[in-house]
């Protein structure tokens, strides 16, 4: 009897302290959901990332900016298992993921919207979305979930509902980008990686897509890592930002700070100290 009571006390004690500890951490700094520690990534002999570190907390929108060829796509590809880093570690919810294959990483809850959209052009819009939920289709119980997710995506991007039976290859660039994002959302990711969603799109379309992403992130509490060349729009939407240059992380800070940072302004926001008439 005594033993049982002790056991019960202990369980309660453990639960309370664990809860308290979590609350504590939550209030002081949010738990990092993703930690990238000092990764080095190569293409053959050529080093594309050098000692890159980055972290994401739950619910954050973080943007990664940098010039063409800086290594932004490589960083995302290292994260999603396409180009695994040669050294360093990546933790997702404290699980090391740097040795996993892409489909295993998707299963853990990280979905990447690749650069250049990469929709399955010979497939209908509907099929593209269903393929996005491929991991859920394996179970019979998944069918309802897939249907629900599809409705969710069609509500997010109503134009896709109208084009549902059309082949993805016949969509406009903006629609393909929406489809690529929708396809990634079909897997219910906890972390969404977006690689230059604005590439090649008209400013109006970009704005529309950014608006949807922002709303979505707020409502669904999905963490987002946004890679952009359009640094101003990205920094306006994000909470924090990182700046990558020649495969190295050179700057990190709150988005508002980076927007004010002189170096960032000169290099990435197209602002310099010249007067307007001098340009």
């Amino acid at each position, binding site marked *: 009897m005594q033993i049982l009571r002790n056991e019960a006390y202990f369980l309660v004690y453990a639960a309370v302290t664990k809860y308290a500890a979590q609350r504590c951490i939550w209030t002081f700094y949010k738990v990092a959901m993703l930690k990238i520690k000092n990764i080095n990534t190569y293409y053959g002999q050529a080093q594309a990332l050098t000692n890159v570190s980055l972290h994401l907390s739950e619910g954050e929108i973080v943007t990664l900016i940098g010039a063409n060829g800086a290594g932004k796509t490589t960083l995302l590809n290292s994260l999603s298992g396409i180009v695994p880093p040669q050294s360093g570690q990546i933790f997702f919810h404290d699980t090391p993921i740097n040795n996993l294959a892409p489909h295993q990483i998707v299963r853990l809850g990280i979905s990447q919207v690749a650069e250049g959209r990469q929709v399955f052009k010979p497939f209908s819009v509907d099929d593209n979305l269903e393929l996005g939920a491929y991991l859920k289709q394996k179970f019979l119980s998944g069918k309802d979930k897939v249907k629900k997710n599809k409705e969710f995506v069609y509500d997010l991007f109503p134009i896709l509902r109208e084009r549902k039976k059309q082949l993805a290859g016949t969509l406009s660039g903006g629609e393909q980008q929406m489809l690529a994002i929708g*396809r990634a959302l079909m897997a219910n990711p906890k972390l969404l990686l977006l690689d230059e969603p604005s590439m090649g799109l008209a400013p109006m379309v970009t704005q529309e897509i950014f608006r949807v992403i922002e709303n979505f992130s707020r409502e669904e509490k999905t963490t987002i890592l946004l890679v952009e060349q359009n640094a101003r729009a990205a920094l306006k939407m994000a909470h924090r930002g990182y700046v990558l240059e020649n495969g190295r992380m050179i700057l990190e800070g709150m988005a508002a700070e980076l927007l004010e940072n002189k170096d960032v302004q000169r290099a990435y926001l197209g602002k310099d100290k010249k007067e307007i008439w001098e340009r």
Partner: protein
Amino acid sequence: MDNFQQLIQYVLSGLSNGAIYALIGFGFAIIYNATGIINFAQGEFVMLGGMLTIFFLTVFHLPLVPAVLLAVMISTIVGVVFERLAIRPLRNAKPLRLIIITIGASILIRGIAMLVWGKDTHALPAFSSNEPILIAGATMLPQHLWIFGVTVLIIIISRIFFNYTMMGKAMRACAYNAQAAGLVGISVKSMTLISFVISAAIGSMAGIIIAPLTMTSYDVGIMLGLKGFCAVIIGGMSTGFGTVLGGLVLGLLEALGAGFISASYKDAIAFIILLLILFFRPEGLFSKKETERF
């Protein structure tokens, strides 16, 4: 009238051979689309299908249906083992190296078959009666009907599989863009394995339905494999329907050439066509655009 009857006869045998070439070509196309390699061991699945069926019929005295099922199953297992042992460990190797490995595997499988079954040719009894059927003066065997029926069935089933099931769509997605497929959670490795399973099953089925007409032996895989490869080159690697047409065209030309010119040119005709196509239209006669696969 006599000539006309002969023509019908040639067309019939051309079409039935062509159907077999189409099925074998299918196997090539499925693996090619999933992995980018040309599996020159494809013909060995065809040989295994026929030889294993005869083996189960004569040694274990099984009825035809279980013998066929077992033969297809074992050929498929050979396909799986082949993928696991020879293809998967070298996933990152260049396609050319993998293609050479498939040639090696085909020699190995053929060698084992020769040790087990010897060099004799064997006959598989016809599935149903051997009573010829007269059509417009030409004779057709019931086995021809079996060949056409099974071929049509396999084509219909694979079209349903590739167009309406999730796994089939995933295989096509993987063929279209493996990286994007990985990013939606499709395991490229499993798709490769499944492509070997399907190719082995279809190939062995082709070997089984043709065996009653042509006899079979440990080395039929060489010629049949090459003919299937011709079919897929004529049709274009990327289109399932093109492969069927390619097989039929090859079978017809072969039969007509053998009938009206000389039977000794039968095999040469296939390779002349192959070379002409590779020279003048390497994408195949019937392939339209990138977008149509399987």
